[in-house]
């Protein structure tokens, strides 16, 4: 039974130009770019939590931002509920659509305006979207949003400033701000990586509760594969701007099909000194995104690389139930 698609990404590309000196830019014909996201396509279904995992520089953050049109893609399309949001040029139309797409950032210290009170921070989206009709309604919704995140009584928090709260509390405010509009789609970029371990699970639990309550679709971006396994229904693994593997979480984790996924999972430390896992060693470090390797981008480090991997780029192919791999020799 086909599930409803909330977000569909088609051939998304985002290149960042590198600023050169004035004279160099006159002499070189083609400006070098950072290939942050290079032609990826995937779908997120309604009500699911889709995880985008990968190491730093793989393009997951950029993808998340393109999905809600915070960054304009170089090319490609993003369809939200059937509407092609990348084609919208009118600011007003985009603004109205933003009501349904929100983002939670990584840094709880920088994602809140230090000069705004908590009430203003959480009320801002409501005010900008002109949703509430009266001050009372505004107050009620803000209080409700704060209570949903266990910041009770809300009056105690509404009149404080961000620097008076702890990291965990600030991140909860950021989440409250994202959910106060009751959006249909949310992106979270490493929402707990800057919090203490014992606080993480509380924040994540609240997040899960909210997602369930609102039936919203969620894109969870993280480099912590173990956490992604815990939170997400489906995973997409990115490497150097490409999606190398995609599929349901448990299947992907238990039986990875792409060598990179295998290496990634093997490298994650386990809080169990007796577990013996396969030690997969891959050499070297992630190549530069300015000049990605030709053919399969992973071939420079892949222990199973063959001749064809150096020249021909593998496409994302379905290898199992809803599982896709971009590899010439999937495991």
């Amino acid at each position: 039974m086909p599930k409803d698609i909330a977000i569909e990404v088609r051939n998304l590309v985002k290149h960042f130009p590198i600023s050169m000196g004035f004279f160099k830019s006159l002499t070189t014909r083609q400006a070098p770019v950072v290939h942050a996201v290079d032609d990826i396509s995937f779908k997120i279904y309604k009500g699911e939590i889709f995880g985008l995992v990968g190491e730093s520089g793989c393009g997951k953050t950029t993808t998340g931002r393109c999905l809600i049109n915070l960054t304009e893609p170089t090319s490609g399309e993003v369809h939200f509920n059937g509407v092609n949001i990348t084609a919208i040029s009118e600011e007003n139309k985009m603004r109205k659509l933003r009501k349904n797409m929100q983002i939670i950032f990584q840094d709880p210290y920088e994602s809140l305006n230090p000069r705004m009170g908590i009430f203003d921070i959480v009320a801002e989206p409501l005010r900008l979207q002109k949703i509430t009709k009266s001050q009372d309604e505004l107050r009620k919704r803000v209080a409700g949003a704060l209570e949903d995140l266990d910041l009770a009584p809300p009056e105690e928090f509404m009149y404080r400033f961000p620097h008076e709260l702890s990291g965990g509390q600030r991140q909860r405010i950021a989440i409250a701000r994202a959910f106060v509009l009751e959006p249909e789609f949310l992106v979270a970029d490493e929402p707990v990586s800057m919090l203490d371990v014992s606080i993480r699970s509380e924040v994540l639990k609240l997040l899960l509760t909210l997602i369930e309550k609102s039936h919203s679709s969620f894109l969870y971006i993280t480099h912590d594969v173990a956490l992604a396994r815990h939170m997400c229904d489906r995973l997409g693994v990115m490497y150097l701007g490409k999606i190398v593997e995609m599929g349901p979480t448990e299947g992907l984790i238990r039986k990875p099909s792409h060598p990179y996924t295998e290496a990634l999972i093997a490298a994650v430390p386990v809080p169990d000194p007796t577990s013996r896992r396969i030690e997969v060693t891959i050499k070297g470090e992630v190549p530069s995104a300015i000049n990605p390797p030709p053919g399969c981008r992973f071939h420079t480090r892949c222990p199973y690389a063959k001749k064809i991997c150096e020249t021909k780029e593998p496409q994302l192919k379905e290898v199992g139930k809803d599982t896709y791999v971009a590899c010439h020799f999937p495991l």
Partner: protein
Amino acid sequence: MSFLTSKENRKLFLRKIKNFWLDFRRNRIGLVGLTTILIYVIVAFASPWMAPYHPIRDTRLAQGYAMPEWVTILPQNADLPRTQIERIYWTVSENPQLIDIQFGEQVIVNYLGGQIKPAHVWLIYNFNYPHDVPPKTFQTTFSWSTDLVENLTYSINLGAVRLNDTVQPVWWLDSNQDGGGNAFINSEGIETLIMIGLDPVKDNLARRIFTGKGEYGLLLHLVFMPASEDATCRFTFKNGELRILGLVHGVLGADNAGRDLYSQLIVGVRISLTIGLLAAVISTSIGVLVGVVSGYTGGFVDEITMRIVDILLCLPVLPLLLTLMFMYGKSPYYLILIIAVFWWLGLSRIIRSQVLSLREMPFIEAAKAAGAGRFYTVFRHLIPNVLPVAFANMVLAVPGAIITEASLSFLGFGDPATSTWGRMLNHAFSYGAFTHMAWWWIFPPGLAIVCLCLAFVFVGHAVDEIANPRLRRRR
């Protein structure tokens, strides 16, 4: 966007101010600065009541370069005289011919003739000079007129009665016509001294008269020399004032023309504060606006703006200011405008660089994700976060403007009709305060400038400390 109207916004705003004050209060240097500024502000408001004299128009209040009064605390200065102003009320000393004299608002001596012998009248005004130290100058002013003069020559003689009862002539006038005028007799005036026969360079008339403390007198000797029996003459005397210029005066002494320096200082507070604050506020506003717009827009607009700023920054401000003032006038408000126009350049760069880092911040993007437009972002997010730096800079711009104004006035380019500290220093320099070692003229304006500027620097220092930690990470 309701700004201060809702209860929430009011509460948050008040808390912000309270937090700021709590932080500021901890900084002792800042408090010292703030108190000093408050004192200056109160003085500026109260200056019409605090300044006893007009700073420019009230001259001859004391001897030129008179020291402040409080130097009399020291024993060697204890006897220095203050300015003594005596309204002259004549009494009859001798009137052998019993000429009719009317006393009242004016003194009218009515000679009605009746004989051919000369008639004399001596009117005297006794006063006490309580110092052993003689004054250097005294001045007598009065209005006189003679009318109904017929067949007669009259002589008006003004003299001073010494302690030993000798009379020192001071001034005289002979005529046989109707006459009158406002006499201004300056004991140091060259005409006076030559008339009496003293050497203008070496002799001092006041010294010749005043030899110690005691009762002195001012003697008005009128001589009527009739040509016939029916000669008449009516002599009117009014508004007589004897002013013995003191060697000490007021709180801060006097300048070369006897103007009160304390009044000049007090009046200067207003001008300096006004110029300083206005120039700072205007330049800060321009600097913030340009910096924010340039930093946020980026691209071509940013490049062009910054190149313009670069070019303008290279211009030498003071010479340009002097030229502009020379061409367009010397009003102090014009000065404010010119200072503001040049000061915003430096601030715009600072603000721009802060905006460059601010606009990458997640909370700006979160606002964008919620549907914020560019204007909203600039006014609701960027400017409030840029304000602490702008405020700190503005507080430091005030002393800059004050010193610029003082420099210009000192160089002589200020408005001569406005009394500012710079003008005070200019006059001190030009009119010989340094040769006279008149420290009470030289130090106070300089100290006033320094203290006010230091106060602003202290406050700016304290505000700066508060401005930065908020943006710093707390882990």
